[in-house]
């Protein structure tokens, strides 16, 4: 596996060589992406990727915490439990282009209402829209890991809490969640990988605007979506190489986030 990983890294490195030379360090710090003048700088897409994933992560954490407690604590068996479990598993199997359509038909109008309410340009598409969509896409992964973690909490711990006079909700908050915390967080962080690299669904709802922005209500773009959009018609060594350089950067960012996630999970497990 690690051979494969290294092979991917080096093939990306070799294919992006013309761009690495031509773009230099400005590739990382600049915010202009202009194929006409062969200016390729990645900041808008790095920020776009991190912003969409981070907002998605926040939404997904809340939702998956709720689902994990519901499925792991209150409905462990019975017809409702199996319906919930199957539904969550099915959500994981839906192709991302279908999620894209769901986004176009449900999230875009909803976000447009929100944008109108706060006085932002009512595009409907944008970073928030794709974050909402991503949150639902990563939910099945984080929720099913979370459920496992919640069911793994030893019942004698919970029984002890209850026998000391704790209410069921106090037991959940003070015993179950602290015990399962690292596992639930680990599940969310693992599913972040999907959010970082998700392409099709994001392209359909993010607005594909290549300017640097921190406004989550406005349109933006992500690294994966940029590659998907421009790769097929990219001509010229530097242009193609720059798109591959974006892929290399995405590869590096996902590696760093994965390692950081592992460290966080280990540290919390140790506490």
């Amino acid at each position, binding site marked *: 596996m690690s051979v494969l990983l290294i092979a991917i890294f080096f093939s990306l490195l070799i294919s992006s060589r013309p761009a690495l030379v031509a773009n230099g360090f400005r590739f990382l710090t600049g915010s*202009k*992406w*202009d*194929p*006409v*003048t062969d*200016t390729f700088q990645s900041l808008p897409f790095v920020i776009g990727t991190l912003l969409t994933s981070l907002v998605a992560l926040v939404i997904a954490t809340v939702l998956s915490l709720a689902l994990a407690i519901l499925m792991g604590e209150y409905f462990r068996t019975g017809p409702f439990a199996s319906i919930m479990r199957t539904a969550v598993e099915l959500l994981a199997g839906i192709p991302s282009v279908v999620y894209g359509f769901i986004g*176009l038909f449900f999230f*875009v109008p909803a976000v447009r209402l929100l944008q109108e309410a706060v006085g932002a*340009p*009512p*595009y*409907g*598409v944008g970073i928030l829209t794709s974050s909402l969509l991503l949150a639902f896409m990563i939910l099945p992964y984080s929720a099913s890991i979370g459920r496992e973690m919640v069911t793994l909490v030893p019942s004698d711990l919970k029984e002890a809490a209850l026998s000391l006079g704790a209410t069921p909700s106090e037991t959940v908050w003070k015993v179950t969640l602290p015990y399962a915390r690292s596992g639930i967080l680990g599940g969310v962080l693992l599913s972040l990988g999907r959010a970082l690299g998700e392409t099709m669904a994001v*392209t*359909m709802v993010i*607005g*594909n*605007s*290549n300017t640097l922005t921190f406004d989550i209500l406005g*349109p933006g*773009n992500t690294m994966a*979506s940029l590659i*998907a*959009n*421009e790769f*097929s*018609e*990219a*001509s*010229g*060594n530097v242009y*193609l190489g720059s798109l591959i350089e974006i892929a290399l950067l995405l590869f590096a960012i996902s590696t760093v986030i994965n390692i950081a996630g592992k460290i966080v999970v280990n540290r919390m497990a140790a506490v």
Partner: protein
Amino acid sequence: MKISRIAVVALILCAATGLAFSQSIELVGAGATFPAPFYTKLFDEYNKQFGVKVNYQAIGSGGGQTQLKNKTVDFGASDVVVTDEAMKSFPAPFVHIPMVAGAAVVTYNLPGSPELKLTADVVADIFLGRIKRWNDGRIVALNASVSLPNTAITVVHRSDGSGTTAVFSDYLSKVSEDWKSKVGMGQSLNWPAGVGGKGNPGVAGLVKQLPGAIGYVELIYALQNSMAYATLKNKSGNFVKASLASTSAAAMVTIPDDVTKVNLTDTEAPDGYPISTFTWILVYREQNYDNRPKAKVDGMMKLLWWITHDGQQYAEPLSYAKLPKAVVNKAEVILRSVTFGGVPVLK
């Protein structure tokens, strides 16, 4: 004994089919997606009539150029002309042969879908993000009979690299100095305003969803989906509605010998629609490379000749604009310049 007899029969069968395969010609091409429906129909017809199979992969103009450069295809297809500069990176010189013409239209989402009249500078300033509202004085002045709402204009552009963007930005670069210096011409641009949609359906979908949106799509796409689009003022000062006829008419100008130099955007033609373009097939000028059989080259050149002549009858039913006669004449000259071992393939 029995087994060996079966083996012999099998061998003969293999050899026979092998021979049959080597006799029939199979060509491989790749490139532009815009003319793909036209090519698919044509290659199918040609196969029925002449028994030459063509495998065409619509991977995009950039991909078509790369595949030709790597010599993995017999011909490449592109919506944009390869610049002299970029041509230097190819292993050998190649020619552009015009196949069919197309156009891009400016479409919008306004109540009642009125038919708007726009001029080049207004279109440029809208897409530069300078004209921000539909009831801007400059739009109202051109459309006195239409009541324009006080809605913000949302620019919708292509997010993927595309020949449609290339022709549209080529037009804007010609008519607006500001566009030329700030944005320029290309298949992908650094857009100053608006949101991006993937492909014609992506742009059309966003325009449909956003009140006050304006975007550009291929003429074929607008016709097939009955979308409202603007009438544009051309270089001669006439307001022209985009149609197959006005697209072909854009090429009614003096055609230079090197057809590659003809650019159909903003031509002098009085009835020509200003955002028109050719789509091209690219083949190496010298076809004797990589041990290619002569028969295959003959087959390919006959096919290209057929597309620019008899094949043109299939263009209009599929909403593509035919090549004007003058362009066909020039295309003939280019087709005849393709050689095999120094000898012209077509007489």
